[in-house]
């Protein structure tokens, strides 16, 4: 039986592994694998948790009150709750220096996808222009992944930007706020489409609207942000568990992969990993190896491996991430309405901004979060806390947030490298990023259009509250070792096989030659399944 070793357990890793297992391969997955705590009282709603837990403050704010957001912090409107801290827990030995980029890392089972918001958008032909395959080539894998994980959506005005693949489930029930926005859009469609090239439709989300694969549908518990306790919202750990049920699958946890060893022919002969428990170093012989640890970690492994093998410090240009702008808004028609916390909490609606070049498409997600903690938002209202609270309470149901995403391209100045000044056992990943010069103009233009669109929908975006998130915050990293039809050093083939090391495959975002404005996770999963089908 042929065998492959997979590094990482995120969205790409688990879908590659599942496909390889289905094709008869022996799969060994090596991972740090911090574990998710068991869901707390999975039958209870968000409000019931507050009322029924013995110590709700520790659940919501953390044992050390680390969930309290004080002024002068990261200036985010909502953050990751204590229950998801395992996703971002680091490991000893991870060293990096960053300029212009604030990276997030995950060593948790399921990777960064454990904390995603479920956006599952296929790339269209324009967005795949720089990829060595078309939408038609990858469409079967979008459908395969949709059948595995469950994706809701529908044919509407956004279909012009995102093709409708197979196995899409009917959307969830809209909350009152969302329904009002759709009503307003229906009335103002001609203006919004004609004058602003702005389109609104249902978000595509990896959440179940009906039972699927042994998982329950969304029960509208309002706990999305805190970690769906019934797995209706898909995370990669669902597929990891499916892999673990397979007899040909071996999951080796508590191992931090430091580097690869090569034979004289340039093939990877083994993977070197350090135990996160005992620090003991182990070596795993490989026939084929698949890196799927995420763009930063996979690139770091390649850089460290080459440095240890040849003493060469490589530079990997082309790091990408989506710039995100957060724009809070108030729906005037919802002022004074009570809010319903028992609803789906992440984006139910999305906005598409058509641009002159289809690749420049701007994608915005509308969230009417009701069960995020309120104190981070209340403190941004510019009055004393009592007055701010009084205003907020009557606006809560009317509040919404638009998360505007911009595409990114591979540019040589945005690169990954190594700092080797402290020797080969203590190298640091060096991350450098600078936004393109034209970014400010592009953002200002999109902001103006979104504000006008919101106004047409009966909403206002309060001035001064729009917030530009730092690069790295979207966690849509890609681009350091891109797919290329022409063999060239530091690139991969159309099936993500390294042009430098023939038995090395990289199936995460590292190989993406372009980053559209849409969340890339569905394409990560589909591409990983495609590689398994076409190269294994």
């Amino acid at each position, binding site marked *: 039986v042929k065998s492959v070793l997979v590094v990482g357990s995120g969205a790409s890793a688990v879908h590659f592994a599942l496909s390889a297992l289905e094709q008869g391969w022996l799969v060994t997955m090596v991972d740090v694998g911090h574990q998710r705590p068991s869901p707390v009282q999975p039958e209870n709603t968000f409000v019931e948790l507050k009322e029924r837990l013995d110590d709700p403050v520790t659940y919501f704010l953390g044992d050390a009150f680390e969930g309290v957001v004080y002024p*002068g912090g990261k200036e985010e409107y909502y953050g990751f709750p204590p229950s998801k801290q395992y996703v971002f827990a680091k490991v000893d030995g991870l060293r990096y220096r960053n300029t212009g980029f604030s990276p997030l890392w995950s060593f948790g089972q399921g990777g960064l996808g454990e904390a995603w918001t479920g956006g599952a958008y296929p790339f269209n032909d324009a967005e795949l222009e720089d990829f060595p395959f078309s939408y038609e080539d990858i469409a079967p894998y979008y459908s395969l992944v949709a059948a595995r994980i469950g994706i809701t959506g529908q044919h509407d005005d956004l279909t012009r930007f995102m093709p409708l693949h197979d196995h899409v489930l009917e959307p969830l029930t809209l909350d009152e706020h969302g329904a009002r926005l759709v009503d307003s859009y229906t009335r103002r469609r001609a203006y919004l489409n004609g004058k602003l090239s702005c389109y609104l439709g249902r978000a595509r989300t990896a959440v179940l609207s009906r039972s699927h694969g042994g998982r329950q549908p969304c029960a509208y518990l309002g706990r999305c942000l805190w970690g769906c306790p019934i797995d209706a919202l898909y995370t990669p750990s669902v597929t990891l568990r499916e892999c673990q049920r397979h007899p040909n699958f071996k999951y080796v946890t508590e191992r931090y992969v430091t580097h690869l060893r090569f034979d004289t022919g340039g093939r990877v002969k083994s993977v070197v990993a350090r135990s996160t428990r005992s620090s003991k170093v182990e070596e795993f012989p490989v026939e084929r190896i698949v890196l799927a640890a995420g763009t930063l970690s996979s690139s770091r492994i390649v850089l460290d491996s080459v440095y240890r093998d040849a003493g060469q410090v490589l530079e990997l240009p082309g790091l990408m991430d989506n710039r995100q702008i957060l724009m809070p808004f108030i729906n005037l028609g919802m*002022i004074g309405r009570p809010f319903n916390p028992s609803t789906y909490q992440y984006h139910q609606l999305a906005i598409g901004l058509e641009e002159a070049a289809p690749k420049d498409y701007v994608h915005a997600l509308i969230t009417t979060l009701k069960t995020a903690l309120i104190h981070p938002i209340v403190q941004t209202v510019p009055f004393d806390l009592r007055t701010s609270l009084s205003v907020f309470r009557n606006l809560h149901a009317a509040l919404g947030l638009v998360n505007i995403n911009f595409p990114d391209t591979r540019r040589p100045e945005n690169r990954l490298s190594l700092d080797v000044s402290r020797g080969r056992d203590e190298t640091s990943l060096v991350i450098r990023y600078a936004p393109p010069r034209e970014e400010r103009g592009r953002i200002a233009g999109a902001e103006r259009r979104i504000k006008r669109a919101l106004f047409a929908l009966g909403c206002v975006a309060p001035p001064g509250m729009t917030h530009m998130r730092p690069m790295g915050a979207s966690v849509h990293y890609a681009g350091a070792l891109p797919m290329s039809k022409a063999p060239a050093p530091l690139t991969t083939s159309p099936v993500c096989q390294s042009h430098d090391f023939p038995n090395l495959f990289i199936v995460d975002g590292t190989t993406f030659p372009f980053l559209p404005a849409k969340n890339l996770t569905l394409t990560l999963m589909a591409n990983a399944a495609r590689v398994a089908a076409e190269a294994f």
Partner: protein
Amino acid sequence: MADLGHDRVAEAECAVFCRYLTGRQPPEPVLAQYVRAHARRDTTLEPADPIHDALLLRIARRGAVAASFADSYASLFAKRSVLRRKLILLLAILESTGSTHAWVDSVTTPSRSLFLLRSAAAVGAFAIRALAVAVVVLPLAFSRRLLGRRSTTSSTAP
């Protein structure tokens, strides 16, 4: 070991701040969590600016009305002050506690026009309070800083 004096100061402070924010006395679980947060001796809740922070805290601890004046000022001129941090901590505890989450997160004025009227009045009152405190605190803080006096540092706990 718990510092009983420290805990009592935190409890009294919690009671005043809770009355200021919600108009009600804090229930036992809220008091306990507020005291627990302070018992950690986290630097987040220690005065960073001994003159400004301590002065604001001293005013705010006098009662709910005084707290509203101090916070009105802090929301404009000392957003990161320890007073604001303590109030935000208390708000976070109130919204996470079963018996108090509705105190801070339910609709109080279902009518839109009434909401606008009430909000306008509340914002006007806020502006007056902020100005009133600024007239007293800003020159005082400035002159103290100028003279290098540090007499306020002794009364900052918890």
